[in-house]
């Protein structure tokens, strides 16, 4: 900040500095253009659209806060979309991250064949989402799916994994664990960086495995945990493809029985690109933007538990 103020007060840069400035800006010019054309411009525009009624065919018509008012006061599907999405963020995401961490801790016990296991856990996270979701569609199939076959085998009644509104979100979370291999590997990579002598000296002091994990290992990798929380919170608020493919019907709609799998982004997509209510969808987009912004700020404000140790 100081440097900025300084340059503004004394705009006279040396000849060399001015040259560096010009060359530097030239090099980053794609980023500057991209920043304004693909980020700032559209953000402002979508705010403008959010105050209009706009169906593409006729020019946008100003309606003030009506879109927001209607969304918050009367749109039932929108409300379901929010609560379903919060379900994913508040229940699905913590389950996934804890599970991924447990897997990483397990893989970090210096077991043999690590690179094989690493590949096995990682591959589902790089295969095309649609292709893998199709397998799960078949696994979850109520009539012929292997999961219900298994339940029958152990003498339990079948479950409507994707058709029962009670079960569809847990099913998506279950499947989502399978896609999370890259987080396991991110955790594993950071676990391997935890200095061994630190753990050893704790052990000499009589610390047991659980104490070592909670007092040393996890604090040491807390910046990475924090990073994965931020990235995934933002990602889970945009949850779309898996649920869309899982619940898509022939007429092009999706969202499951009684909108039990209608997530925020799916409703936004439907509003914008199937019903062509661009103004109304823009208001949804801006509400999402605000929610994500508040969530991110909240996470940064409560980041006191993140431990930054000095680089060696």
């Amino acid at each position, binding site marked *: 900040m100081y440097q900025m103020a300084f340059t503004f007060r004394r705009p006279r840069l040396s000849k060399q500095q001015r040259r560096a400035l010009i060359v530097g800006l030239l090099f980053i010019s794609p*980023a500057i253009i991209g920043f304004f054309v*693909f980020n700032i411009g*559209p953000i402002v525009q979508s705010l403008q659209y959010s105050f209009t009624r706009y169906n593409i065919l006729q020019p946008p018509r100003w309606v003030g806060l009506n879109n927001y008012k209607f969304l918050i006061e009367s749109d039932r599907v929108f409300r379901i979309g929010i609560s379903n999405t919060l379900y994913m963020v508040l229940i699905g995401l913590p389950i996934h991250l804890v599970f991924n961490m447990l897997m990483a801790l397990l893989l970090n016990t210096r*077991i043999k064949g690590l690179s094989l296991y690493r590949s096995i856990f990682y591959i589902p996270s790089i295969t095309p989402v649609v292709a893998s979701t*199709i397998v799960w569609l078949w*696994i979850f199939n109520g009539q012929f799916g292997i999961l219900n076959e298994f339940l029958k085998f152990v003498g339990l009644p079948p479950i409507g994994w994707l058709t029962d509104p009670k079960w569809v979100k847990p099913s998506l979370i279950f499947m989502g664990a399978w896609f999370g291999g890259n987080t396991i590997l991110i955790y594993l990579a950071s676990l391997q960086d935890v200095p061994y002598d630190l753990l050893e000296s704790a052990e000499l002091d009589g610390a047991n495995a659980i104490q070592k994990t909670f007092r040393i290992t996890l604090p040491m990798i807390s910046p990475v945990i924090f990073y994965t929380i931020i990235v995934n919170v933002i990602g889970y608020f945009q949850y779309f493809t898996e649920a869309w493919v899982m619940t898509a019907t022939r007429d092009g709609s999706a969202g499951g029985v009684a909108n039990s799998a209608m997530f925020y982004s799916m409703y936004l997509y439907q509003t914008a690109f199937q019903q062509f209510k661009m103004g109304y969808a823009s208001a949804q987009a801006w509400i999402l933007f605000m929610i994500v912004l508040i969530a991110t700020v909240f996470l940064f404000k409560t980041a006191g538990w993140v431990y930054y140790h000095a680089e060696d």
Partner: protein
Amino acid sequence: MTASIHWRENRIVQDRIKKAIAYTIVIIMAVAYIFPLYWLIVTALKTDVEIFQQPPPIFPPNPQWQNFGESTTYIPFWRYMWNTIVISGLTVLGTVLSCTFIAYGFARIRWPGRNIIFLIYLSTIMLPSQVTLIPLYLIFRDLGWVGTFLPLVVPHFFGNALYVFLLRQFLLTIPLELSDAAKIDGASELGILWYIMIPLMRPALAVVALFTFVQTYRDFLGPLIYLQNQQDWTISLGLKLFQNMYGAQWQLMMAASTLAMLPTIVLFFFTQKTFTRGIALTGLKG
């Protein structure tokens, strides 16, 4: 004395038990992770009768290998594959090219204000894409680009903050004296980038290229919005065609899904080291 020996023996036994538990869980989880892929391939090899058999055969008695061939004609598989490769390839090209320049501009040229501008630029990572989705769609529509590959490809020629960050981190580790020496010898910034930095950056660029490719190859929402003619679809959109047809041919759908997964899996096995390095790098950001 005996107590201490006892203690040590206990300790060894304990460690063994712990190891055994760890192995058991890891192996069970590994099998669980492989199972969906196994089930995918097995289902792809079944006949349309075996598909609906109860209980389902764990392995089909007569594997129907021709299902794979059939699935590529049931939908225009190769056409969709080609579209996907073209889009992914151009996206990789755009991302690598633009991010190299941008990262160099932030990391290797000492201009006033570069760090603040970089932080502002970096904040775009946290922007949910839905916020810009609609205006961008309308802009591309006005340009007449909707229904072409351009909306999916062109934005990538203007940088990606995450990969710029990665490359910048990498470039910062190279001593500045190297550039200064080259400058004294009369090299321009472009010359330094081309002859000195790019050869050094190769491992980092490989990570960016690989991650970008996989990400684009997997993408669904982008193509769903912008590719309206069926012959322009990517493989992810194409797979959904099976769902839209009456009397879903599950075995063919599975066969096509298997084939659609193959490129990324093969790529992974050939570039495992790059993937592993990339994952460590993404974690490093924290």
